[in-house]
């Protein structure tokens, strides 16, 4: 079941609160009622002591003499207290005037130690009794020290007012608990809402991030410390999303540009051909031109797709040990005739055992792209040099070609997508500037790297792949 954080927090808080308040109220009730009972017992005992003080002993025996005013509570007619005194033999010494017919039960403990217990008063009221066994004090006139005889006393008093007090305390505590709970619920709701406000703020900020502008980051300022890691993760996620979208957009823009240009060429050429009646040779020329454009488009589309796959990490790699010498030889084979026709010298200085561990297709594509690039831009009668060496953990391949018209500062740009710096490229018209960008991407995918250097009209590419 879905439950909001707010409800859950509030429920837990209220549960804890109820438990705590009940325990607290129970303790308070117990302490208060006990202390009230003790107070009651003390007053009851004081009454008993007054009675016991009225019992005297002289030579003739034990006497009870008391003035009504000394203890009026026993002599009033409405709801009086009761007492009864017994001789040690069980005979009744005296009793309060309210006890007319029935007597009271004796309650005895050790001498001079009061014993309390709840009792039912002779008139039916609920009450409390104290029993006291004592030795009556001797009269001043008593001369003989006769064996002192003990007297036992029971005093009973109505507990109506005590119970009313305890009841009041009970109600007071219950009301206080309930009130506290209601207030706590309100305060808790406010506190939870306040506490969760940053969450709402975060939600609003996340909602404000638009699909077309992922560069926005969620600010960490004025956010509680607990939220900062969450926001950090969210910002990381946004960052990655932004990167992915940016790549996507760049790819779309590049692809659009790269396809629009040849499309325009195709359309223009066809429209011009149709402008007026022409000879067969003219049409043949236009068709040849269009075919060249289509080949260019095909190459561009394939390169763009490969590049997109590597950039999005869709392509799976199957690393194996590769004979780099053989890769270079097979890559050069299709280029040999044209290079020879243009008088380009190809000088490969490669050790017999040149190896790397990488995906065959990707590595082959890198090698072919670098070789075609070199063959394309070498001046007629120029020279291409390839050298390579293996170290413990890497393969280093250096491909250099003469006839480079770029300046040294252009070197870092040759790997930019669609960067066309070389004017010779415009004369061939079949290159779209994707080759080296693809080489760099592919090298990165293989865990290697590629760099370019331009010096003395020589363009040199350094390729490093893991061995």
């Amino acid at each position, binding site marked *: 079941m879905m439950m909001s954080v707010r409800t859950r927090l509030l429920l837990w808080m209220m549960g804890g609160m109820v438990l705590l308040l009940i325990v607290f109220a129970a303790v308070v009730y117990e302490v208060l009622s006990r202390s009230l009972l003790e107070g009651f017992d003390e007053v009851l005992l004081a009454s008993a002591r007054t009675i016991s003080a009225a019992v005297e002993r002289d030579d003739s025996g034990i006497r009870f003499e008391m003035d009504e005013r000394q203890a009026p509570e026993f002599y009033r007619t409405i709801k009086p207290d009761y007492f009864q005194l017994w001789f040690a033999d069980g005979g009744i010494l005296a009793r309060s005037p309210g006890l007319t017919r029935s007597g009271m039960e004796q309650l005895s403990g050790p001498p001079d130690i009061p014993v309390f217990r709840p009792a039912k008063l002779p008139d039916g009221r609920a009450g409390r009794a104290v029993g006291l066994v004592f030795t009556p004090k001797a009269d001043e006139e008593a001369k003989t020290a006769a064996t002192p005889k003990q007297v036992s006393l029971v005093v009973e008093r109505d507990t109506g007012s005590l119970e009313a007090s305890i009841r009041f305390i009970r109600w007071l505590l219950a009301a206080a608990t309930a009130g506290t709970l209601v207030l706590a619920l309100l305060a808790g709701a406010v506190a939870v809402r306040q506490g969760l406000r940053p969450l709402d703020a975060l939600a609003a900020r996340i909602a404000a991030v638009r699909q077309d502008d992922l560069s926005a980051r969620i600010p960490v300022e004025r956010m509680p410390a607990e939220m900062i890691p969450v926001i950090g993760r969210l910002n990381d996620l946004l960052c990655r999303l932004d990167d992915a979208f940016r790549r996507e957009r760049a790819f779309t823009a590049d692809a*659009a*540009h790269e396809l*629009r*240009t*040849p*499309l*325009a*060429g*195709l*359309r*223009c*050429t066809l*429209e*011009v051909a149709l*402008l*007026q009646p022409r000879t067969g040779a003219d049409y043949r020329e236009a068709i040849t*031109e*269009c075919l*060249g*454009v289509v080949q260019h488009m095909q190459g561009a589309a394939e390169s763009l797709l490969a590049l997109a796959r590597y950039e999005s990490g869709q392509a799976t790699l199957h690393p194996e040990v590769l004979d780099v010498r053989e890769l270079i030889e097979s890559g050069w084979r299709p280029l040999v005739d044209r290079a020879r026709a243009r008088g380009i010298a190809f000088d490969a200085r490669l050790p017999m055992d040149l190896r790397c561990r990488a995906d065959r297709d990707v590595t082959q594509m890198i090698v072919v792209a670098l070789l075609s690039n070199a063959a394309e831009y070498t001046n007629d009668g120029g020279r291409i040099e390839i050298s390579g060496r293996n170290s413990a953990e890497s393969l280093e391949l250096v491909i250099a070609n003469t006839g480079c018209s770029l300046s040294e500062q252009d070197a870092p740009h040759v790997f930019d997508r*669609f960067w*066309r*710096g*070389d*004017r010779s*490229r*415009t*004369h061939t*018209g079949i290159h779209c500037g994707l080759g080296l960008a693809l080489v760099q991407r592919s090298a990165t995918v293989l865990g290697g790297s590629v760099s370019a250097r331009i010096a003395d009209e020589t363009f040199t590419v350094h390729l490093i792949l893991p061995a």
Partner: protein
Amino acid sequence: MRVLVVEDYPPIRKAVVKGLREAGFAVDATGDGEEGLWYATSNDYDVVILDLMLPGLDGLTILKRLREDGRTAHVLILTAKDAVSDRVKGLDHGADDYLVKPFALEELLARVRALARRAYCVKNPCLELGDLRIETTAQRVWIGSEEVYLTAREYALLEYLAMRKGEVVSRTEIWEHVYEFSSEADSNVVDVYVGYLRRKIDRPHRPPLIRTLRGKGYSLGASE
């Protein structure tokens, strides 16, 4: 009318040049930025068709230098960049028009014709001078109700003179606006073509349409 095409993608360049030539324009073309700037600053072109992504020097830089140099040639930017910001940037750099690739050749030709007319403050595509009428869109010429058939070069010459009607136009100007760099002709060829043109458009018992001003050049429709 003379047009410069600066476009680095050969199929487009070749087709546009061919299309423009067949439409009667004198066309120079290059695929290189720096060369394009040199062409544009060393000649008085009526219209310059400029690609933005060029080797050597990019299109916007060429445009900026051209304007800094005080050249008033009408520039049409031809590019695959279609974002509004790109168009605005191009126009703000001093371009007169903007066409996104791929485009229809017809539209390009129409825009170039419009820009060429604007170069001479002419808005009506139909030029009239007495009973001489030139339809620049169809490239047809009438004297009264009779159509006159001209070669492309003759037409270009007549159109240029008509665009500047009433003005004295020097041989060099004619040569610069009607002939291409690649043509081997020098400005003397202008006299020859003016002769051909006169034979086709002048009628007996009427004053000649094209007057020769010795040592200065020619004038079409100038008052006596």
